[in-house]
C-alpha cells in the first residue's frame, strides 16, 4: 500500500518542473561539472587523435626491410606481407637509378621499379595504379615542376613514350629524392628495400619480426623504422591512457551527487512531509531517483551540447570515435551520480520526521 509507480513518477516530474529556479540552478551547476569533464576529454581526444593522424600520415608506423644482397625471393616475400594481419600495405623497391627526360634534357630524376604495394605505402591516397608496361606514376614534385598530370606522356631516356597514370605524393613518406618516376613491376627477383606499413598496434612486433622474413641462411637482413623514435617522441596511446580525467569521472559523479544531496538537505522539510503522509523511504528514494534522472539528464545533454559546440568552433568537429570516448566518460559519471544521488537524498532525511517538519 504505497505510491503507484506512475503517480510517483508524475510527482517527481512535477517537483522538478514546479521549482524552476531550483531545477535550473541545479542543472547549470551539474552541467558545469559535466562540461568540464567533457571539455577536457574532447580537448585531449582532439589533440591526441590529431597528432596520431599526422604521425600515421608521416609514416610513423612504416618500417623498411633491407634484404640480403641478391636474394632472388625477396620481392615475392615482401609483397606476400600484404596478406599478414596487422600489415596495412607492403611493397618492394627495386634498385633505383638516376635518369634524364627526353622532353627536358638535364632534368635528372629518380627512376625506380616498385611493386604495387610500395605505391600504396608511399601514397595511401593514390587511386590509379599503373598496369605496368608503358604506364608510369610520377612524384608530385616532378609533376609540378614539369607540368605533368594523369594522361600526360613521358619519354624517359630515349625509350618509348610512357603514359602518366598517376601522380603520387611520394615525397611525403620518401622525401630524400624529390623527382620520382615509378613503374610497377611484378614481385619477382631481388629488391633493394621492402617498405611495410603496419597498423599502430602491430608496429613494434612487426618491426621486430621483419628481419627474419628476409634472412636466408647466414645472410643477415636488417629492418629499421622509417621514423626513428627517441625519448622525445610522443606516444599518443600512453598519453591517452595516462590522461588525468580518465580517473576523474568518479570525482565528477561525486560532485554531481553531492549537489543533489545538498538540495535535498535544503528540501528536508518537503521530503519529511512525504514521509509524514506515509511515503516509505524506498518510495521516496525512487521518487528522488526519477528527479535525479531528469536533472542529470538535462545537465548531461546541456554540457555535452555546448562542449561539442565550443570544441567544434575552436578546433574541428569531433569524430565518432572521439564522441564515443567522451560520452562513455561522461555517461559513466552520470550513471554513478544517478546511483548515489537518491541515496544521499534519503540519508539527509533520516531521523525523526517531526524534526524534519519543523525545519523550514
Amino acid at each position: 500500500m504505497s505510491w503507484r509507480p506512475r503517480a510517483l513518477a508524475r510527482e517527481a516530474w512535477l517537483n522538478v518542473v514546479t521549482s524552476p529556479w531550483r531545477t535550473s540552478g541545479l542543472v547549470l551547476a551539474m552541467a558545469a561539472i559535466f562540461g568540464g569533464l567533457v571539455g577536457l576529454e574532447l580537448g585531449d581526444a582532439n589533440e591526441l587523435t590529431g597528432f596520431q593522424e599526422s604521425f600515421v600520415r608521416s609514416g610513423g608506423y612504416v618500417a623498411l626491410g633491407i634484404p640480403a644482397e641478391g636474394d632472388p625471393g625477396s620481392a615475392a616475400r615482401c609483397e606476400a606481407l600484404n596478406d599478414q594481419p596487422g600489415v596495412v600495405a607492403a611493397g618492394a623497391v627495386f634498385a633505383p637509378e638516376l635518369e634524364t627526360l627526353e622532353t627536358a634534357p638535364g632534368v635528372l630524376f629518380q627512376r625506380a621499379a616498385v611493386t604495387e604495394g610500395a605505391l600504396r605505402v608511399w601514397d595511401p591516397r593514390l587511386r590509379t595504379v599503373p598496369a605496368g608496361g608503358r604506364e608510369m606514376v610520377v612524384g608530385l614534385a616532378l609533376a609540378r615542376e614539369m607540368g605533368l598530370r594523369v594522361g600526360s606522356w613521358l619519354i624517359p631516356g630515349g625509350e618509348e613514350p610512357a603514359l602518366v597514370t598517376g601522380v603520387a605524393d611520394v615525397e611525403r613518406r620518401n622525401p630524400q629524392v624529390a623527382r620520382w618516376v615509378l613503374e610497377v613491376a611484378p614481385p619477382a627477383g631481388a629488391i633493394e628495400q621492402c617498405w611495410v606499413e603496419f597498423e599502430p598496434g602491430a608496429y613494434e612486433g612487426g618491426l621486430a619480426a621483419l628481419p627474419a622474413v628476409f634472412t636466408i641462411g647466414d645472410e643477415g637482413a636488417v629492418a629499421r623504422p622509417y621514423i626513428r623514435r627517441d625519448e622525445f617522441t610522443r606516444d599518443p596511446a600512453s598519453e591517452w591512457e595516462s590522461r588525468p580525467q580518465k580517473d576523474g569521472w568518479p570525482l565528477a559523479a561525486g560532485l554531481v551527487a553531492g549537489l543533489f544531496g545538498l538540495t535535498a538537505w535544503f528540501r528536508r522539510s518537503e521530503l519529511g512531509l512525504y514521509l509524514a503522509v506515509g511515503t516509505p523511504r524506498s518510495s521516496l528514494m525512487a521518487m528522488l531517483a526519477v528527479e535525479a534522472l531528469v536533472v542529470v539528464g538535462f545537465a548531461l545533454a546541456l554540457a555535452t551540447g555546448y562542449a561539442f559546440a565550443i570544441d567544434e568552433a575552436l578546433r574541428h568537429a569531433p569524430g565518432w570515435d572521439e564522441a564515443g570516448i567522451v560520452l562513455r566518460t561522461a555517461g559513466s559519471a552520470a550513471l554513478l551520480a544517478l546511483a548515489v544521488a537518491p541515496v544521499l537524498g534519503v540519508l539527509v532525511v533520516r531521523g525523526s520526521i517531526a524534526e524534519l517538519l519543523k525545519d523550514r
Partner: protein
Amino acid sequence: MPLELRTVTHRYGPGSPPVLRGLSFVFPEDCSLAVVGPSGSGKTTLLAIAGLLLAPSEGEVRIDGKEVSRGQAGELRTRLFGWVFQTVNVLSGRSVEDNAMLSLLARGTREEDARAAAQGALATVGLGEFGERRANSLSGGELQRLCIARAVAAKPRFLLADEPTGQLDGATTERVTRALIEGRPKGTTLLMVTHDPLVAAQCDLTLALQDGQLSIGGMA
C-alpha cells in the same frame, strides 16, 4: 477497540528526566479530544507516540487491542493516521489540489480517485475554489486549512493535530478549528494539542497533561 497507550514512559536520551511517566490511556473513538497542558509538559511527545511517529522508551501503543510493533508502525501510520502540524508543511510550488492529494497517493490510491477525494476535502474546509492555485499564494489560515484537507481527504481513523492554530489570529483560528472539528470524516477521532482554551472548549473532551500523566478535564 480504540487507540490505547499502556504504561508509556518516554525519555529523550538516557539519564534525562522522563517526559511521560507510565502513562496509560484509552482514547475514545469518533469524538474530538483536546490535549492541554503547560509548555514542556510533553503534549507533542504524547501526540507523536500516539500517532506512531515516535516509539516510546517504555510501554506500548495498542490499536484494536493489539500491540503495535516497530515493523508495523509505518504501515499503520499511513493507513490509519492523518496529521496536521503547527508549522504549515506544504509543497509550496505545487497546486493546492496536488497538496491535498498527497496522503491518498501515498496510500496507493488511483490518481483520479485521489483527485476527486481531494476536491471534496478542499470543499469541506472552504477551499473548493482554490484547487488550481499554487500553495504559496495562500494565506497562513488557508494553508493550515489545506493541511487539514490533506489529512482528512484520506479519511483517517485518527486525525492528530499539533497546535494547528498556534500561529493564527482569532478569526482564522475559529475557521481552522471548525474545519478540523466539523470537517473531519464521520468516525474519525480527532486528537488535538492546543494552548488555546477557546479551541479546547469546542472539542468533545479535554485531556490535561501534567507531570507526565493524562487526566480528563482541565484548563489550557
